[in-house]
């Protein structure tokens, strides 16, 4: 399957992405639009930082008491007539789903967007059983036709342009369709309408699960989630175990943060709350509602001071849109289900194959744009460093790198060694220096010098010229103004006070 090939290396996937101009233009265009919209929405609401802090506090509290709220949610949902299943692994989630399918003798499934269902690869499992599975979110429908996986958390087909979509849809239609958004959307709508009506099972994800009432809350812009959760007789909802919110009051904060962070919308177009299966007085809804609560590596983060906060994520995709690395390589290069900065953390953290996913955390400059964009202030840039540190501690780095760092350690351990290293460097660089630069593309300089020119070590380091400079400065030193003097003393004095406390 293209777009999801974990057997390839990160470097290979990156090269493929960087050579795909269609992808890079499409990703650049859409992420730019989304982050501009987000910024406008944040400015419009005014006290955005306070909302962020409020969101963070709610998520911190919820995850700290996740066992309590999960139990409350399950109890309330069961009381409303829903079935609650707990799956500790992806395999278990698939097995539970297939059991329900078998009991219902299901032949067809319509799905609304769910990242956790991508995580457990449910589509593949259903297709293997001969159960027709149709994604009904437009973006998901597009990538399903293309045989790909989502390359963005909320815009799964962000890497496709109109012409590529027209090509895919024309194949289904059996006739050429124009690359016109209205025509293409209308085609998908008419095609999907039939699927909604005949499906045995509706599968949804879950944006938030409200513990106090046992409710599932879905955010969508196309209305497809509402069709999926009302037309078929049986509904299966998959949710990561951390999707919980204690109360409806907390949802208000999330409903303010999520759409604004994701697309810059003040409100999502459809916000559906499902309070259990259909009751006698209800006009519609499934007769049977199953909720599968999936762990799949999440509970391992509970109690880990470095990673517990990653469970605070509300899957808005703002960090992807802000990320300068994602901007150039898109989502598939990350290799697993989640991409961008949150993907670079979730992938090595949730998966148990540490060796295979170790490298993904290197796909970041640690610029902090993700943290700045995150509506619940997850310190992703710090977590990426923690993952790298664990890679080092557990021996998952290259020998040459380890050797380089050993040398570094010696060089920085004393200024004498440091100066010696500079001297040796200056001798070594001599034959390579041209006009103060080192243009060679040999050895470790290859990656840098392919597109840049490296500077040469200065003929005299700063420390070597310091004595002369200091003497010179002493002669022309200005008188310090009383204000500056007072200010310096005042600030330094305050520090002293603090220390004594």
């Amino acid at each position, binding site marked *: 399957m293209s777009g999801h090939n974990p057997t390839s290396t990160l470097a290979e996937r*990156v090269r493929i992405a960087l050579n795909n101009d269609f992808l890079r233009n499409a990703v650049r265009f859409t992420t730019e639009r989304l982050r501009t919209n987000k910024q406008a929405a944040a400015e419009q609401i005014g006290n955005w930082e306070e909302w962020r802090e409020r969101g963070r506090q709610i998520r911190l509290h919820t995850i700290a008491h996740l066992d309590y709220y999960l139990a409350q949610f399950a109890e309330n949902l069961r009381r409303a007539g829903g079935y609650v299943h707990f799956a500790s692994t992806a395999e278990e989630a698939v097995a539970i789903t297939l059991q329900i399918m078998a009991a219902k003798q299901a032949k067809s499934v319509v799905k609304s967007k769910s990242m956790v269902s991508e995580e457990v690869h449910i589509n593949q499992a259903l297709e293997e059983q001969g159960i027709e599975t149709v994604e009904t979110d437009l973006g998901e429908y597009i990538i399903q036709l293309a045989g790909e996986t989502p390359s963005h958390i909320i815009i799964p087909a962000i890497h496709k342009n109109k012409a590529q979509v027209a090509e895919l849809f024309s194949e289904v239609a059996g006739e050429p369709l124009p690359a016109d958004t209205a025509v293409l959307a209308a085609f998908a709508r008419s095609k999907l309408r039939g699927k909604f009506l005949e499906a045995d099972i509706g599968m949804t994800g879950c944006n938030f699960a409200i513990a106090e009432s046992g409710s599932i809350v879905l955010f969508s812009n196309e209305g497809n989630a509402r069709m999926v959760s009302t037309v078929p007789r049986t509904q299966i909802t998959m949710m990561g175990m951390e999707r919980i919110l204690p109360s409806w009051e907390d949802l208000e904060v999330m409903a303010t943060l999520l759409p604004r962070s994701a697309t810059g919308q003040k409100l999502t177009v459809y916000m559906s709350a499902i309070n259990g299966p259909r009751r006698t007085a209800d006009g519609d809804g499934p007769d049977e509602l199953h909720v599968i609560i999936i762990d799949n590596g999440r509970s391992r983060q509970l109690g880990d001071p470095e990673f517990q906060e990653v469970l605070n994520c509300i899957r808005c995709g703002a960090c992807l849109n802000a990320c300068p690395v994602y901007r150039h390589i898109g989502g598939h290069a990350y290799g697993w289900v989640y991409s961008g900065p949150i993907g670079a953390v979730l992938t090595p953290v949730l998966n148990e194959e540490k060796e295979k996913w170790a490298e993904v955390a*290197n796909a970041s400059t640690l610029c902090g744009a993700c943290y700045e964009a995150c509506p619940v202030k997850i310190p992703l840039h710090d977590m990426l460093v923690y993952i790298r540190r664990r890679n080092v501690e557990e021996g998952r780095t290259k020998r040459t790198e380890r050797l380089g760092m050993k040398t*570094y350690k010696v060089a920085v*351990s004393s*200024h004498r060694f440091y100066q010696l290293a500079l001297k040796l460097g200056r001798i070594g660089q001599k034959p390579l220096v041209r006009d103060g630069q080192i243009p060679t593309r040999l050895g470790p300089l*290859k990656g840098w010098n392919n597109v840049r020119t490296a500077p040469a070590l200065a003929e005299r*380091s700063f*420390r070597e010229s310091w004595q002369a400079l200091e003497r010179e400065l002493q002669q022309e030193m200005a008188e310090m103004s009383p204000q500056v003097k007072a200010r*310096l003393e005042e600030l330094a004095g305050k520090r002293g006070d603090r220390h004594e406390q």
Partner: protein
Amino acid sequence: MKISLFATCLSDAFFPRVSEAMARLLARYGIRLTFPEGQTCCGQPAFNSGYWVEAKEAARRLIDAFRDSDYVIAPSGSCISMIHHHYPALFRDDPAELRMARELAEKSYEFSQFLVGVLGVSDVGARFPHRVTYHPSCHGSRLLGVKDEPLTLLSHVRDLDFVPLPFAEDCCGFGGTFAVKMADISAAMVTEKADHVRETEAEVLVGLDMGCLMNIGGRMRHRGQAVRVMHLAELLYEGVRMADERA
């Protein structure tokens, strides 16, 4: 009052003119800097790559070198944010070292932060008749919060034609070892940054961190884009000299 210069390994080894400009400029305010020779590197290259044992070695040297200093000033937002933001994580298991790391953080300042925030200077009296654009480095602006200080200083320079850099906040792709490990992505990022600099038609690109400036400057030089790359301290000092000459 002991005010010390932390040259940072990049400026010390590759760009001594930057620390020199900083020392000369501060001397005009009566700031007599000291240079504790025990300093080497802040440890960031190792820290960011996950080699915390190695990073600690560097951090300990730095803490030790500046133990007696009342103020520490560096021409880098990135190295100072390393001290502020990451030293506490690095030494979190040792209360004694953690306390010393916090003491260093408390007295450490990036150059423009010190000039504007501590000395209260917004106009150094410089003149610089050139078209200039500014790249805000990520660590200095996001982690350390130094956003307005350099713009305040630039806005008071006479005859300076300031052009905002499009997508200024986007990372230039340096990221320390990232530029070597993820060379292809880094190349794509720095190329886009250099394109944005070209759009401004600026003669000079100014910044607060030599890592980023070495990256962007190296890219521009490689493709023959004639833009002068300067640290803010260099620009201000040159501008002050220019104003002196005219007076």
